[in-house]
């Protein structure tokens, strides 16, 4: 069961501003989805190792050779706001 306060907390963690309508709707929707998710608990998972990667791969290494990187002007070409050869962001503010 997820309530409105939890939705607000999670939205803040996710850096999402929700509309009033979304705040109304989300607790019910997320609760329903999570109830289905919680059916996982019907399985006997005692002593089961978690899968972190599906194929057997460990320590994939490569030669540590320098390569040219993306030129600065191309890296900045898609940015919404650019200044002095960098990405410009608004002030973090007082808080």
């Amino acid at each position, binding site marked *: 069961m997820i309530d409105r306060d939890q939705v607000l907390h999670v939205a803040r*963690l996710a850096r999402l501003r929700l509309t009033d309508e979304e705040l109304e709707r989300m607790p019910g929707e997320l609760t329903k989805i999570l109830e289905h998710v919680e059916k996982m608990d019907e399985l006997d998972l005692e002593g089961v190792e978690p*899968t972190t990667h599906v194929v057997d791969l460990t320590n994939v290494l490569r030669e540590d050779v320098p390569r040219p990187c993306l030129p600065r002007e191309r890296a900045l070409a898609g940015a919404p706001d650019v200044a002095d050869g960098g*990405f410009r962001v608004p002030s973090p503010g007082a808080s």
Partner: protein
Amino acid sequence: MSDLLGLTAAQQAQLIASGEVSSAEVFEFWRGRAAGDDLGSYLWVAEETPADPGALPPVAVKDLFCVEGVPSSAGSRILEGYLPVYTATSVRNLEEAGAAVLGKTNQDEFAMGSSNENSAFGPVRNPWDPSRVPGGSSGGSAAAVAAGTAPWAIGTDTGGSVRQPASLCGIVGLKPTYGAVSRYGMIAFASSLDQCSPLTRDVTDAALMLRILEGRDPCDSTSLGLPDQIELPSAERLDGLRFGAWGLGEEGLDPGVAAVVRTTLDRIEELGGSVVEIDLPSAGRGISAYYVIAPAEASANLARYDGVRYGHRTEDFQDLLGMYENTRAEGFGEEVKRRIMIGTYALSSGYYEAYYGTAQKVRTKIAQDFAAAFEQVDFVVTPTSPTVAFELGERTADPLAMYLSDYFTVPMPLAGIPAVSIPCGLSEGLPVGFQIAGPAFSEGRILDAAYALERAIGFEGVPVP
């Protein structure tokens, strides 16, 4: 030139090789077809024909593959107008083999969806019945191949996003073993599941395309390639092969779909194969695990859309945090927000073990189910989708009902194994897909079996005008 419409990609390649048509003529033909699409399949079509497009017919590419200088938005407002500075390895491999990019296809936003109704740029319609969905998330790629506005296409499969739309549109969709194809340049959804996958008119084209796509890529350290080169399939019989049928008793399975699938099982026996019903005791909980793992990984992957380096930035902000929150609120659609919320919740302090940790254990159980099954049978077969294509709007009000569309396709990516969907007949006049899954790296054997079955079924595609 309209003859090209009836040919597979492999057949067109032969015409180009023999000099009967030039590759520029082939490209131009398909460019005209793509430009005339009226199903919403494309978000961008190549503006001109390259001087020498290459030895293969052109390929339609799901929007989430980065192509240098070509709009690549993953179906999202937050990336509207984004022009990548590099090209995905899979697309580059296709280009180097001679398949130029024909266009970018519509999709569910960030590949989240099973109906293509979650695209920020409008839905795609099913060429068999335009009031119905093509499936998703690679709905544009599937509809384009089925409607003959592309000779072949690539999409991505995370929980069924290539096999399910292939099923609903009556074409072939092949999800390779995790790691067979590089993910470099694919706009990420759920990184432990995403796999680039061909959508083609027949099994031979799927094999031809997989041969080009697969391979280890230094830019993706999870990529391995395949151990053996994929040969074009040639099997005519299934003698000695054992097929384990799963899920035919499931409650949500449409009786019409079940009947067509049972007929296909009979065909397997006619071709010399044997069929037994098998149980995968944990696979039924695949959806539950998937809707933790995929949203959790998505919530991390989508953190990068912050209005700083590329894509949309809001004009409504006071400070940095407000800029992030409003940019993301404006840029993401409903389903994407919902999944970011689920994923963030599941990964948040105090819940990680209960959700993500448990889901990873379910993954192990499902992989063990398949391993046990492959001790007894060569392939696991299922319906691809529990229903035929549904009406637009039919499931949008109930996210969970939409998620259950992936019931039969989700267990395979959770276990990392390959599976193909081939059309096996019609129910209510709409295509039914038959799924064949095998152990990791068994693509060659899966394609051979699919080829023999395809020939026996003799499925006719959508009548193209």
